[in-house]
Every structure is written in structure tokens, then in C-alpha cells.
């Protein structure tokens, strides 16, 4: 791998893109597997392109440079009682990270978008794809592109900002992003619901998700068969809703968590460090409820090396696995016709951030060539 450089200006980034054979932009490397490449590639950090350029609380929008830390954005929004409802991960500095930058800073806004990952709050209002409004980026030909808009509603032109979601830096080098934000509920409260088994959990999650209560988050920790519900409102309102859920379900009781318990429950997930010290690799797995049951059962047989946290009402599986289990995960995903995204792996250096069943449609490559005519960025497939 080539050496790692930092750019201070957009113009410098454009020059690097124009003159590199192969280039990949990173932020603070909190998701290192996504920038793991085997071919010689110039890694460029945009973490110095940092700062909130515009923030208009009355417009529900902000624009920030690519390397702006989520923590900075979160603090600026909180000061105006606003937030990013999709709960971006890895906001806090991570003292256990091997990489110094990640340890000291936490994730950037562009890294979050490029990885296409959203936290538990995705359940209520949508994910990172649903909140990005505009993207400025350097295309493969070195040109600076201004896509999307800066207002909350815009249907003009192709929605290129969405295309960049999940592109892992393979379609362009992001320099600035505009997001929609929402007013933040005055409080959040978390409740726990104990299921008997994965099938029971699946049934409960389905009932909770289509109920009248409009819950902010519905997550499931498969090892403990425990469902976590988060509600955004004043305590009395949340308690009334929780009581009604218990009444409606009849067979299960919703128990409140104390604030401390809630923090202890959510914080390791939000740092993607929920699997303990021997399960440090993290794989994101899109799924539906039926697949969640199958994956959870598979994890039960490997409980010493694999932990599953099913988020967003069973739509996203977060797998914490021991590094030597990644090949087994791969096999499972292929058998189940599912796909996974390796976010972090301490030992794997294959550059294979996509696991399981792979896309290989001709249109993918044509879109890549449109975004990156000279082929400066690594292949979409992650190898």
C-alpha cells in the first residue's frame, strides 16, 4: 500500500485525483476495512477539509466539509435542539482503535455517507440516504461536481448524492455535503422487552413496527433475546406509550431502562464495539425478519465467536465476529443469498469489503465509468 497523505484544499485534492494512477479518499479511518485495498493505491485523507460551512436551523439544513467530525456536527445541532435522526455511528473518539486518527477523532460526515451506514434511529425517519440533500465531490476526471441542492426539497436533475451513499469512495472524492436535519425530541427513553426465542422476537418486532406508537428505534440483541425500544418524547408520554404496548401485546411486558442502563446498552453498539474483545470485526448485513431469524440461529451455534445485534426492526444485522470467522460468515451469506459489508476487520487484508452474494451487473461498471472515466478510484467490488 502506498503512503497516506492529507489534503488541505479542494484544489489539492483535484490535482491528486488528476495525477494519481489509483486513489482512494478516507476520513478518520474508523471503518478501516472499507479502505483496505490490495492494489497500489494512494490513500488520501480529507480530514483536514473540516468545518460546518452553513447551518440554518430555520431551514433544517447544514452544509459541512467532508472531513468534519460527526461529534462537531452533533454538538452544533444539539445547541439548536436539532439532530440527524438516522443516528450516525462512531461519533465518539474510540480509545480502543488501533488507528491513531480513529482513536482521537471519531467518524467524519463524508465517511458516514460513503459507508452508507445508519444507526437504530433509521427506523423512524429513514437512513443517511434519506437525509442527504447535496454533495460536492471530485469526479474521476478531476472536475469538481456540485450535485443535488441545499434546500429540503429538490427534484432537479439526477439524484447523484444518493448514488454516493454506500459507494465507499469508489465513485468520487467527497468534499462537502448538505443534509436535512430534524428538531430533536425533548427526551429519549429506552424500554426492554424479553422474547422467548428468535421466532417470538421476530413476531414481536413486526407487531411493534406496524403499531400505532411510532417508535424511534426497535433493536434486538440476539444473545439475550432482548428487544430494545426507544421512544422520543417526554417521560410521561413515553411511559404511557410503553404501558399501552404491554397492554396491546398481552403476553409480554415492556420494562423501562434507567438512563444509565440505556447508555450502557446503546453506547457499545453506537461505537460498533458490542461484541467484546475477541469479536472485533464488524459486518453489516441487510436483511428482512425471516433472514434475521436464520442469521440469529446460525450465530447461536457460534456464540463464543459471533454476536448479532439486529437493528432497525430486523432490517440490518450488525455482526461482531472473531477475525478467523469471516470466511464462515462468507459461506453463510452465500448459502442464504445475502450480502455483507465488512466495516472493520483487524486481521483481514484481502480488501474484500463486500462479502456473501455479490452483485456483478454490467450496469454497475457503466455507472462507475460515467463517474470515473479514467478509472482513478478502485473497483466497486471491493477487491
Amino acid at each position: 500500500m502506498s503512503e497516506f497523505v492529507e489534503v488541505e484544499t479542494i484544489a489539492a485534492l483535484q490535482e491528486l485525483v488528476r495525477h494519481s494512477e489509483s486513489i482512494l479518499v478516507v476520513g478518520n479511518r474508523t471503518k478501516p476495512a472499507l479502505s483496505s485495498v490490495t492494489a497500489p493505491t494512494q490513500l488520501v485523507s480529507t480530514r483536514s477539509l473540516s468545518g460546518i460551512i452553513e447551518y440554518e436551523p430555520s431551514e433544517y439544513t447544514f452544509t459541512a466539509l467532508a472531513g468534519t467530525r460527526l461529534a462537531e456536527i452533533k454538538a452544533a445541532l444539539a445547541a439548536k435542539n436539532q439532530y440527524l435522526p438516522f443516528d450516525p455511528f462512531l461519533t465518539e473518539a474510540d480509545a480502543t482503535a488501533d488507528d491513531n486518527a480513529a482513536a482521537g477523532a471519531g467518524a467524519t460526515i463524508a465517511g458516514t455517507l460513503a459507508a452508507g451506514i445508519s444507526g437504530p434511529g433509521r427506523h423512524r425517519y429513514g437512513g443517511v440516504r434519506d437525509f442527504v440533500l447535496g454533495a460536492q465531490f471530485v469526479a474521476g476526471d478531476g472536475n469538481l461536481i456540485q450535485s443535488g441542492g441545499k434546500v429540503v426539497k429538490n427534484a432537479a436533475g439526477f439524484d447523484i448524492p444518493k448514488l454516493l451513499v454506500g459507494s465507499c469512495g469508489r465513485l468520487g472524492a467527497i468534499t462537502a455535503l448538505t443534509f436535512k436535519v430534524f428538531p430533536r425530541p425533548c427526551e429519549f427513553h429506552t424500554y426492554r422487552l424479553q422474547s422467548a426465542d428468535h421466532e417470538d422476537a421476530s413476531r414481536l418486532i413486526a407487531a411493534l413496527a406496524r403499531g400505532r406508537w411510532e417508535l424511534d428505534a426497535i433493536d434486538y440483541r440476539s444473545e439475550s433475546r432482548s428487544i430494545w425500544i426507544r421512544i422520543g418524547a417526554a417521560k410521561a408520554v413515553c411511559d404511557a406509550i410503553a404501558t399501552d404496548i404491554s397492554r396491546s401485546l398481552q403476553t409480554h411486558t415492556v420494562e423501562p431502562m434507567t438512563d444509565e442502563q440505556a447508555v450502557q446498552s446503546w453506547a457499545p453498539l453506537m461505537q460498533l464495539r458490542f461484541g467484546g474483545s475477541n469479536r472485533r470485526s464488524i459486518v453489516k448485513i441487510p436483511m428482512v425478519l425471516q433472514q434475521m431469524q436464520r442469521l440469529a440461529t446460525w450465530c447461536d451455534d457460534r456464540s463464543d465467536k459471533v454476536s448479532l445485534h439486529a437493528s432497525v426492526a430486523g432490517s440490518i444485522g450488525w455482526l461482531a465476529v472473531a477475525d478467523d470467522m469471516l470466511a464462515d460468515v462468507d459461506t453463510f451469506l452465500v448459502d442464504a443469498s445475502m450480502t455483507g459489508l465488512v466495516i472493520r476487520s483487524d486481521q483481514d487484508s484481502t480488501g474484500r469489503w463486500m462479502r456473501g452474494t455479490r452483485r456483478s451487473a454490467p450496469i454497475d461498471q457503466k455507472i462507475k465509468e460515467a463517474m470515473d472515466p479514467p478509472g482513478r478510484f478502485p473497483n466497486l467490488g471491493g477487491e
Partner: protein
Amino acid sequence: MPSVDLQTLRDLLPPGRLSDDAASQAAFESDGLTAFRCRPLAVVIPQNETEVVQTVRWCDQHAVPFVARGSGTSLSGGSMPVAGGIVISLNRLRQIIKVDPDNRIAVVQPGVINLHVSAAAARHGLYYAPDPSSQKICTIGGNIAFNSGGAHCLKYGMTSNHVIGIRAVTASGEIVTFGGESLESIGPDFTGLFCGSEGLFGVALEITLRLLPKPECFHTVLVGYRSLRAAGDAVSAVIDSGLLPGAMEIMEALAIEAAEAATQCGYPKGAAAVLIVELEGPREKIEAEKKQLESIIAATDAFETVVAADDQQRDGIWAGRKSAFSAVGKLSPDFLVQDGVVPRKRLGEALEAIEGFSKDSGLRVANVFHAGDGNLHPLILFDDSVDGELERAEALAGKILDLCVQMGGSITGEHGVGMEKREFLPKMYDEPTMELMHRLRAAFDPQTIANPGKMFPGAEAPALSSHGLHPLEKAGVISRE
């Protein structure tokens, strides 16, 4: 256009699918942008996905342009036929393939009508959130092509926020699958790119939609103001309070008067502007939020406040709003409607400028808008039988679009660029960005045969002619938003 042997296409398809007689051509010659018409070479009405793919591949092989079309309600001329081209009418691909209540998704064909998705999901307590005003008649395929909006975009987003998977045939005949049944996917969000591509990439064949739980309660408030500015200030106050209403709409005097005449909606008499604010959610939350909203409204310069006491009264309030454009349109033989967006804080400034444009042009403009997201809907009234009025109306519309761009907004919030606003797209995006969009189009459609003449400037416009209201609008089936 080289001569085309339609017989080869006719031979590919079962009998009766292709029509090229004058009556069929005439039936599809226009869409919701009624000032324009263009007769296609032929119309294909496929019964299934295979016939759609066969037709697209035939067009690709013979370099014949095609326009896929649902119910033809596009207000930007997005489904306008192309001379010498084929219209592929998708209305018979109207199967709701499945509703999966546990995962809160519906899988549908492109010709399914928007409101039918919610109807199918209702027994599970679910609904499909995007609600363009034409939702009784417009199709999901058309909604995807133009990334349709509606009154509830501020809280719930646009069509693309509710589409999680698409299977499509590209203009070059490739079958592609983007996304799937999970809310999330891995890799670039191709589904998001396809939404809002205005039919330039190909034809959606099967769509996976995200469903939401139906809101349990609504709290709908209608407030009368003596000035538009006071109504605008009230919107700011609601936004600043931290409430997130499902909808916030403003109508001004001309629109109020017309809506009252059309629907007897009981709007406050003598109001210069009315504001509709709607909260929605579980009863526990609404109970708390409605008190907050009440105190916010009480602190504004409202002269009359009506709280909908029941569903009937709520429907009445919305009937006035939803009928506003059709009602205003009846005051004039013809009208144009724009849907530019400005930053919310500049709404008052934008409306004052529009008033000035109106005076300069001698044409009346009525304003109805989604106040929560700065989405204007100025309605420009004109009479095409008067020499030069259409041109003046178009010039006025152009000034409004320029204004939206200058203010940092957008030329379209929910109708799409289509044919109507294609000359304005380069005002929003610089040359490298436009070139990139052309390259993306070429990735799907190297021959530029899919819905040509839309979104990008430079193509010839179909002949102008005057037609007044859309027939469905006259019948009160659809309305413009």
C-alpha cells in the same frame, strides 16, 4: 427520423397491443402540461413485463425513441410523446404483487395507482406515505420517474425515500435489479439514482415500496391571517418551536376565494392568507403537541383559528386546499403552475418578487405553497386566445424559476424538470455537473432513446397549443399541487 417498419414490432407482440391509428395517437398526445401536444408514431399497451421488455429492446435495435407513461399526470410535460416515437402505456401492469406487513413493504408493478397501495396496506394498519395531489390517478411508475412529492414531504420525504428496490429494463435492454426487500443494501444506492431520472434510464418493471404505520391521530388547524407575512411568521414560529408537523400549507386570497366558491370549505372570510398545520402521530404525543401548537398560534397575529373537530371537518379543510388550483384555474381559460423551491426564510421575499413580476406582466398569479419546505406553487393565469399571453406567461414563469435559483433554491421541488423547465437545469448546475449527468444517462441509454427531450436542454419542443384544463382536472379527479 428514419422510416420505421412498425410491422416488426407488431409481429413481436400479441394482437391488439400496438395501435397507430389517429384516435390512439390523439389519446396520448398530451399529459398534465396541457399547453403542449405531440402525436406519437404508435402506442403500445403491454399486458405484462415481457411485452415491455420486448418493446424496449425493439426500440433499442431500431433506434426508435420511446416514452413510458402511467396516467399522464406529469405537470412538467415529462410524459409528453415524441414525434416518431413509441408511447409505452403501463396502466395494465397494475398488479400489487405482495404486501408484506411484517417487513412493512409492498411490491408493485409500475402501473399501480398511488392510492391503491395504501388501500391494499390499510388492513395491516399501514400506508404508503408519498401523497401527490393526483394520487387518486397517478401511478407508482410515474411517481418514481419524477420523484413525486406531496403535502407531507417535510416530515416523510419524497418518493425516493420510500422506494427500496427497483427491477427495470434499461433503454439498452438490460434487465437490472437495484436494492431489494431490506431497507438497507450494500454498495452505491442505485435505487436512489433511478428515482427521479425522469424516464431517461429505462422503464421500472417492479418496485419495492416501504410502508409506514398509519398515523393514529390527526390534529388539523386552519388559521386565518390579515397578511401573508403574518402567515409566514407563524410558519417560522412553528419551525422554531421544535414541532415537526406532517404538513404546513399556505394559501393566499385569490386561491382562498376560488376554493371557497368551488368547495364551500369554510375558510376564514376576509383572510389575506390561511395557514393549515397538521400534526399526526400516536394520541399520547398529539395530546402534548397540540397544546404546544395552540400556544404558538395564539401568539401570532391570527384573526380566526379553526381546529378540525372530526374527520369530516379535516376532510373539508383539505378539500379546500387540494381543490385550490383547479378552482383558481377556472377563473381563467389557461394557467401554468410552477413548483420552484426557495429557502423557507426567504418565502416572503420571493412572494413579494412574484407579485412584482405579476404586475409587470399584467397577468394574475395566485399562490398556494408547501410552507414547511419552501415549495412555491405560483399559478399564472392567462388566456391563450389573446395574442402573446402564453409567451408572457412563460416569461413570467421563467422569472420565477430564475428567482428560485438566485435564492439558492431549486427550479423544481416535486414536478420534475420534464420538458417544461429543461432550459433552466444548467442554471442550477455548472458545466462539469451537466456533463456528468449526460454520462450517467449514456450509461443507461447510449442512443438517447428513452424519453428524449426531457430534463436536458436543446431538444426541439413539440408544437404549442392551447387546451385549458386537463380533462381529468375538469372532471375533478385530479388537481395540481
